[in-house]
């Protein structure tokens, strides 16, 4: 909604028609003379060699899975092996024109792509660089396993390095390329441009787009390819990612130098999604290349390519790469191929006919390309046999080493704990000057904030008026502005992040401060908002994205639960995830806009979960999150955006400061009851403090949790040892609330000190009602007191409004409400 773009009814209502350009299908024409001239015989033969390597590597895995042995060596591999036998030409052809700066992301079926990309990189890198890469990778742990002095040269060694490193990874060995924590479906090797492969169908699409955004915004060389299957076109987040890459604003609103993110959506079209046949059964496009036509006027430069001819794929990838580097992306290729192996070893091929499989075997891309080279005199039959013999011996060697526990010990299970978080502190991910449109001190909001009261009460203890206050949203603004002016790689986006100033006015003023490429609006694509941020962060850059309502996390489920949370640990700490996901928790807007889902993110290993309730913490905790290297779910309640600072008497500091991670804050001291609150319930808690004192003479110790994970229990334990009584309250529905988790831990830690079981107060286990009825739905101060009376210590003369009896616990559980 930029004001510079006018939507004119005359234009909008004008008659006309949309025209499409024809979409090329398999237009590549083989011409050996031309090909030899372009590539040289040696490069053509190397392509064949690479295809043979992949074929033998996967044949070995297939035999291990199916027969339990390969070349007389027995081995049991209980994990997955999704093979791509038959797809070698598509993988090798793609990598021919790629450099190490060009990234490929892939799927669960990407062994071949890893091999193709790494073998291509090995042939392009000089020996010195190759040696350094191998020696520095995990301090030479992988290299030392294969280096035995037998190698002809560095490239020969590097080939064994990647064959062994990948196999050791598949077999969960500590010497694998991700120390055995990634495994078959997640392995990757960044130094050669092979980026994370993803076990979620289509999972790599939006991550690749984010990685391409990182290249675009930080002006890094290279393109990014998302290798995803034909069936992934059925996944919403794939389309979300495509929209994210195709947005008009890159050319309409951003500085002219940028263009679109250089990303190629490369559909490895093997005709099946597991057993579902995409053409004729589960999809309708007939040609996946058709999809490009629906995205933008250049139709994503989409075409179908014969993926059984490596030179056709190389040609198409080369042309797309040029288009992408020219800022004309995103591009799309529909690479026709066929998986001769099953989806997995358990696949009985009940969904396809023997005849069909025989047809493709006759067309086998590896054999066909070998015959092409022989018939054109590039190699002899004997050369081909010699190559196969050499490759088989390399694969045997890799397997021997990878299954030898003395060389390749299993990865230590305790390693995982150490890589769940990187716990880093990074001021900036690049040294260049952060790009700003104005000096921070000249920013209108910055000037306005100078006049605000950073503590809510005047010297006489009288509260300032709302419009005089420095509020929670100002704390968010200051933390964002600080990191934007410190780290040049820091970007922020989401729905309504720019001109609107964020749906809740936290970003007012940032539009004036920042160029488009650092703060922009995204499509309504929650999956891709988080997914692209994941790709941006793991490619080395800081990003803060936003979901306007916590309820919308449902739209970004995979990206939050499987992607941003897992990549640091699945990469054995190679990847960092400096990503803050700001999530606003609503109310008054009914059942799909009022949910606190802290429990869900608390449940997922690998996420940090912060939930500030005060203005001081809004700034201090966001500063902390934006300086770290871990994915932080940063929850903010819309109930608190307008509050001033009620606790820090010195007011919210004007300078930079960080809240200590994992530390709850004791807001009032008391000896009779510990009340732990999360988020805005802090303010109901303050009412409880007053009422318990006035009516019942009881002193309540009020603790603002602030952090759900990580969490230091010391202060809570100390408090409970003193009071013997604890209530934990949050706005989340009571069933499965994260507070139950904390209550259970407190029961363990303080059992002998408890005078009653910990009591958890939450919202009703229902949909949230209309705004007018919310006080009967969200926890109120009176509910907390009722619960104390019913479950902890009867209060003289107290009349309950709310039923907190044991019978009620059983009743609502029985009914599931």
């Amino acid at each position, binding site marked *: 909604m930029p004001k510079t773009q006018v939507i004119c009814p005359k234009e909008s209502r004008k008659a006309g028609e949309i025209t499409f350009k024809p979409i090329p299908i398999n237009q590549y024409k083989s011409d050996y003379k031309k090909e030899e001239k372009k590539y040289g015989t040696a490069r053509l033969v190397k392509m064949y060699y690479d295809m043979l390597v992949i074929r033998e590597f996967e044949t070995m895995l297939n035999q291990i899975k199916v027969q339990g042995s390969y070349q007389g060596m027995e081995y049991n591999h209980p994990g997955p092996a999704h093979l791509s036998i038959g797809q070698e030409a598509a993988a090798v052809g793609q990598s021919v024109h790629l450099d190490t700066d060009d990234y490929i992301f892939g799927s669960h079926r990407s062994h071949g792509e890893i091999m193709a990309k790494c073998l291509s990189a090995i042939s392009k890198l000089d020996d010195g660089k190759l040696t350094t890469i191998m020696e520095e990778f995990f301090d030479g742990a992988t290299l030392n396993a294969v280096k035995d002095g037998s190698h002809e040269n560095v490239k020969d060694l590097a080939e064994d390095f990647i064959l062994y490193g990948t196999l050791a990874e598949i077999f969960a060995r500590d010497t694998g390329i991700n120390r055995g924590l990634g495994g078959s479906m997640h392995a990757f090797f960044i130094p050669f441009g092979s980026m994370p492969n993803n076990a979620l169908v289509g999972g790599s699409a939006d991550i690749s787009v984010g990685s391409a955004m990182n290249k675009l915004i930080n002006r890094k060389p290279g393109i990014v390819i998302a290798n995803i299957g034909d069936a992934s076109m059925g996944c919403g987040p794939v389309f979300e990612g495509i929209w994210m890459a195709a947005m008009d604003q890159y050319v309409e609103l951003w500085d002219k130098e940028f263009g679109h993110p250089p990303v190629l959506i490369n559909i490895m079209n093997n005709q099946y999604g597991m057993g579902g046949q995409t053409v004729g059964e589960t999809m309708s496009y007939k040609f996946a290349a058709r999809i490009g036509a629906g995205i933008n006027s250049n139709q994503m430069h989409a075409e179908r390519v014969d993926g059984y001819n490596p030179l056709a794929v190389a040609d198409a990838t080369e042309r797309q790469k040029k288009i992408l580097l020219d800022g004309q992306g995103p591009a799309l290729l529909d690479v026709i191929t066929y998986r001769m192996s099953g989806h997995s070893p358990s696949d009985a091929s009940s969904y396809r006919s023997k005849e069909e499989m025989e047809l493709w075997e006759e067309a086998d891309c590896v054999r066909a390309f070998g015959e092409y080279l022989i018939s054109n005199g590039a190699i002899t039959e004997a050369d081909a046999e010699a190559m196969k013999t050499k490759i088989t011996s390399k694969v045997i060697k890799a397997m021997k080493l990878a299954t030898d526990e003395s060389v390749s010990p299993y990865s230590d299970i305790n390693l995982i704990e150490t890589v769940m978080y990187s716990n880093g502190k990074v001021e900036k991910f690049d040294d260049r000057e952060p790009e700003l449109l104005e000096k921070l001190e000249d920013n209108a909001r910055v000037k306005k904030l100078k006049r605000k009261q950073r503590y809510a009460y005047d010297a006489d203890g009288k509260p300032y008026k709302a419009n005089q206050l420095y509020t929670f949203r100002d704390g968010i603004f200051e933390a964002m502005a600080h990191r934007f002016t410190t780290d040049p790689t820091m970007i922020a986006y989401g729905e309504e992040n720019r001109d609107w100033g964020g749906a809740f006015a936290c970003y007012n003023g940032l539009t004036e401060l920042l160029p488009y490429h650092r703060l922009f609006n995204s499509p309504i694509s929650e999956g891709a908002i988080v997914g692209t941020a994941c790709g941006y962060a793991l490619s080395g850059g800081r990003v803060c994205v936003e979901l306007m309502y916590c309820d919308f996390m449902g739209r970004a489920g995979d990206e939050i639960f499987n992607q941003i949370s897992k990549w640091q640990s699945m990469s054995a700490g190679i990847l960092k995830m400096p990503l803050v996901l700001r999530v606003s928790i609503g109310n008054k807007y009914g059942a799909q806009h009022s949910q606190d889902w802290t429990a869900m993110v608390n449940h997922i290993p690998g996420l940090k979960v912060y939930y500030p309730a005060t203005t001081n913490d809004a700034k201090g905790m966001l500063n902390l999150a934006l300086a770290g290297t871990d994915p932080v779910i940063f929850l903010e309640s819309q109930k608190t955006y307008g509050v001033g600072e009620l606790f820090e008497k010195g007011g919210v500091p004007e300078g930079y400061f960080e809240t200590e991670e994992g530390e709850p804050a004791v807001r009032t001291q008391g000896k009779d009851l510990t009340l732990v609150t999360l988020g805005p319930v802090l303010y109901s808690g303050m009412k409880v403090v007053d009422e318990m004192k006035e009516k019942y003479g009881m002193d309540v110790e009020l603790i603002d949790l602030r952090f759900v994970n990580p969490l230091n229990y010391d202060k809570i334990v100390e408090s409970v040892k003193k009071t013997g009584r604890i209530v934990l309250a949050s706005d989340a529905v009571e069933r499965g609330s994260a507070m139950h988790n904390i209550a259970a831990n407190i029961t363990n830690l303080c059992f002998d000190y408890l005078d009653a079981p910990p009591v958890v107060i939450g919202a009703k286990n229902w949909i949230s009602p209309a705004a007018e009825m919310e006080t009967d739905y969200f926890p109120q101060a009176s509910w907390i007191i009722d619960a104390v009376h019913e*479950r902890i210590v*009867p209060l003289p003369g107290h009349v309950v409004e709310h039923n907190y009896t044991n019978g009620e616990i059983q009743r609502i559980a029985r009914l599931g409400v």
Partner: protein
Amino acid sequence: MATEILLPRQGQSVESCIIIEWKVNEGDVVTEGQTLCEVETDKATFEVEATASGTVLGIFYPADSDVEVLKVIAAIGEPGEDVSALRPADEEAPVAAVPVVVEEQVKTAPVVATAEAGKTTGISPRAKTLAVQKGVDTSTLAGTGPNGRVIERDVSTAQAVTPTAQAKAAAEGLAIPSAGTGMGGRVISADLVSVAPEAIGAAVALLDFPGNATEIPVKGVRKVVAGRMLASLQNTAQLTLNTSADARSVLGYRSKCKAAPEEAGVGGISINDVVLYATVKTLAEFPELNAHYLGSKIVNFGNIHLGFAVDTPRGLMVPVIRYANLMTLKQLSAETKRLAMACIEGMIEPDALSGGTFTVTNLGAAGIESFTPVLNAPEVGILGVCAIQPKPVMNGAEIEFIPHMGLSFTFDHCAADGAPAARFLVSLKTKLAAFELTLAG
């Protein structure tokens, strides 16, 4: 193949141990070194550790079993392994079925009770802890928590009465006053108020007869002590001589030790240490008392291995200071402390509880003026040390009150006669009365 867990031999003389408590259940996953159970010999308590990691497949003796050492008491292995071959033939209880059933009953009982009666009379963990500290019998309290639960405030406002006072009040029909003079206002026996004589009958009639009583099985240390004491009295001709020693020198020396600079390392030397030291020096002159009477023969020992009685939560223990005759006072003091502490903590090695040639038992701190120590047979002598009290002594025409330490010496007339026993006491008195000379010599 599952790993057998043997009941280890704890000291040479130990033939069997009582399993006090299992810390694991069948089916639990344990790691090597983890405590499996606590066992008790006649002298001390030990923990049996897992010698392998895995799942506890079998627990072959329930708690409270008396098990011969080196028997297989449990097996650890992979789930599903058959351990029936490892099960000892004499095993007491079938496959730990007993603890499992008990546990299930415990689990389901409160739920049923709640549902049926609609009122629990539970007690909060915090209240329970406080009750123990305060000595409050929570069974007498009416809980004011939710559903009648006894909570902290019920205990903190409850009247604390010592168990002795409670028993006395019940037995004698005495009234319990609202506040007592014991620690923290606890009502002690002295605080009990007599009920008017004519009201006693009525007061007693209201009480359950005979009131609270607890059955404690005689086992472990208690059982051993009981057996030995009875055997001692049945099998020896013991008698006790009483006297007292001028304690001024001992008290003076003790004050000097206390006042000495810390680096001297003598601040910890107690009166008991001094008495032990003087005893060792005296015994050296009376080898016939540093002896064992074995019926057909008497063994006189060339060295003095001095036993001393220690009061522990588990009962009386007598650790032995080996080669006490070779030690300086400082060494003797340190060794005494180490052994006493080990006994109190239940960590004493069984071998340190045997082999004594003479024993000293000290009830002085309790104000005992004289008593008849029971011989730790087959030892021939045991010295009882009593309280230090002023004693009038004629000094010319004047009467002077001089602090004296009571000494009660029991000896076995089978092995020694009264005269040498008396001479032993005279020599000991001299050594105590001029302790610094004793120390010098």
